[in-house]
């Protein structure tokens, strides 16, 4: 509360704190004029603080999806670029959030958007057109894949993936008899492959004949025709696809048959408020002997394709089993990794030994109610410190702490993820590599944004259609 508040003022502060956002928007009209110029840089501390804020913010848009679009989950350790790209796609498309809150108060229909790995909340009767499965064209020695298309009132979004082809920054498309230019708003690339999203403005009264295909014109070549259709729609997520719930996390699978016996599966989560993102569906499992698998009714496992850096971590493909008979499949997800960005950070203070010395520790801290034991500290130089940590990790537990972010109060350094495994799984003992202040006799940092392994299994019987 305000330091110089007098006793007669508290109720006014309380009352105005109750204003709804929409009321406040109007009430504050004209109150805050734009400054005539950029704010003058403040003290060194303020500048360092602003840099930390900027660094954290930019880091998070690189590594996490829009928090209200939990469907588009990414694994920051491997797929930072695609995470940012996908978030851009969704925001450029003007999608509404799909969140548990939205789900709880749902009055609108949910539509699954193939290739975007998410659902869109929209009014019944909204004109939406999507591409059910990717369209791939050969270009020279490489391939160009139209991964996803969403056309809606006022905007269109198309994602392309290039493999050993030149990067595209702009192309044109014939839609409903008119030609539109799509421009790139986000792009990522790795090892000759690239992935990009493109958007354009469309009329507000977009109405297409679903039979009328869309053709793209890229560097003079026609790509298509792309046959669009209305998305699959339902009142709730579990009725959109195969769905299962554990620990309040619902996962719904959306499969589609591709060419060459492959089936693409997109996984869409609905998360409780406390969780902010799914980082992994165990395609690259932390519990190495127990990752995601696909099996038929007899328990025979189908081959899951190795994950690609250019594909969402919520998306994978598997190869159908050779059989004369129609097979039914189910996806089994033994574990998922989730982040709790909203968890309160916790300060840790550890005694520092002299430079060049180490000392045992018996200090336990907690984050989000989970204990973290600091067992040893070594100061290899004046500022370089390593700390051994026992995360009390237990893969048999319903929920077990796996990671946390580290922040240094008062440091100009950006906030870091400074840890490494010491290959002693399943205990998950880590050695944190931290920075001490020169001459300090204590090491002070904060643990924040914990990540957990949640145990399932989530079992999703796929509904495959020819």
């Amino acid at each position, binding site marked *: 509360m305000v330091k110089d508040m007098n006793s007669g003022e508290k109720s006014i502060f309380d*009352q105005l704190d109750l204003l709804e956002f929409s009321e406040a928007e109007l009430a*504050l009209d004209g109150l805050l004029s734009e400054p005539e*110029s950029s704010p003058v840089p403040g003290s060194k501390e303020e500048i360092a603080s602003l840099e930390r804020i900027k660094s954290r913010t930019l880091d998070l848009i690189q590594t996490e999806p829009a928090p209200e679009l939990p469907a588009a989950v990414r694994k920051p350790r491997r797929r930072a670029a695609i995470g*940012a790209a996908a978030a851009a796609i969704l925001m450029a498309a003007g999608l509404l959030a799909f969140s548990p809150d939205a789900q709880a108060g749902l009055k609108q229909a949910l539509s699954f958007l193939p290739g975007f790995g998410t659902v869109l909340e929209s009014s019944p009767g909204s004109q939406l057109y999507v591409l059910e499965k990717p369209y791939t064209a050969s270009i020279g020695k490489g391939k160009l894949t139209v991964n996803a298309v969403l056309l809606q009132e006022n905007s269109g979004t198309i994602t392309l993936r290039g493999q050993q082809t030149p990067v595209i920054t702009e192309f044109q498309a014939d839609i409903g008899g008119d030609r539109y230019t799509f421009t790139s708003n986000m792009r990522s690339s790795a090892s000759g492959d690239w992935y990009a999203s493109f958007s354009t403005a469309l009329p507000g009264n977009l109405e297409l004949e679903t039979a009328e295909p869309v053709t793209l014109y890229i560097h003079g070549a026609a790509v298509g025709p792309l046959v669009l259709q209305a998305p699959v729609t339902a009142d709730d997520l579990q009725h959109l696809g195969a769905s299962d719930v554990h620990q309040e996390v619902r996962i719904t699978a959306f499969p589609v048959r591709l060419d060459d016996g492959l089936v693409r599966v997109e996984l869409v989560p609905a998360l409780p408020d406390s969780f902010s993102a799914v980082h992994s569906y165990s395609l690259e499992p932390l519990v190495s002997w127990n990752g995601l698998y696909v099996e038929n009714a007899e328990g025979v496992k189908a081959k899951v394709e190795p994950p690609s850096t250019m594909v969402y971590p919520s998306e994978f493909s598997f190869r159908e089993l050779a059989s004369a008979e129609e097979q039914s499949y189910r996806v089994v997800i033994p574990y998922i990794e989730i982040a709790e960005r909203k968890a309160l*950070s916790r300060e840790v203070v550890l005694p520092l030994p002299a430079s060049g010395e180490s000392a045992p520790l018996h200090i336990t801290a907690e984050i989000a109610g989970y204990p973290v034991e600091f067992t040893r500290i070594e100061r290899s130089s004046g500022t370089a410190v390593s700390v051994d940590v026992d995360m009390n990790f237990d893969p048999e537990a319903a929920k077990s702490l796996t990671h946390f972010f580290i922040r240094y109060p008062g440091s100009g350094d950006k906030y870091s993820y400074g840890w490494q495994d010491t290959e002693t799984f399943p205990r998950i003992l880590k050695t944190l590599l931290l920075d001490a202040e020169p001459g300090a006799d204590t090491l002070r940092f904060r643990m924040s944004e914990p990540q957990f392994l949640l145990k399932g299994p989530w079992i999703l019987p796929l509904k495959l259609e020819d």
Partner: protein
Amino acid sequence: MTRNDHDSLDWPGRFRTKDKQALADAIDFYGPDVHRLVQRILAGCGSAEDAEECVSDVFLAAWNNIGRYDPSRASFRTWIFLLAKYKALDLRRKLQPGLGRTLNEATLNMQSGTNTEREFLQREATGELLRYIGQLREPDRSLFLRRYYLYESLDELAAAFGFSKKAVESRLYRCRTMLKQAIHLTGEDGKGELGSW
């Protein structure tokens, strides 16, 4: 950066196209003021790191929700400040769970009734308060909102408006008294007047 430069920056447009440089620039431009607002709301609870994290969350929210920004309702600066206010209040409630319920349970002095009824009455009271604030003359309206909505200190307001601190206190007191007389909010027993202004 001059005002004209700023006008041409088109923050919402650049946020919509996911221009990351715009996000960095916006943090430079609005960050210090947003940080101060968050610090004022969190005063007495939370750490400096909590405040920084909160400011970062404000800009992430702006980045992720730019599709919801409506320039006909508020300037971009106002919108950012509103995001900051509510992010900071959320964090304060989390850090001090007992806070934020004072009005609901004590000020309106209602011992019975469903939450829905309470919320309805509370909303009615807030709406009426807003109407009267809108009728205050300048600079009193601005003083009032910057004090009670944006948590600015008396010293800050004195400096911003060119008044003495005492004059700011007097004007705010006069506004509170006027609003109290105008609104006459009561609780169920007729005694639950809107606080002790």
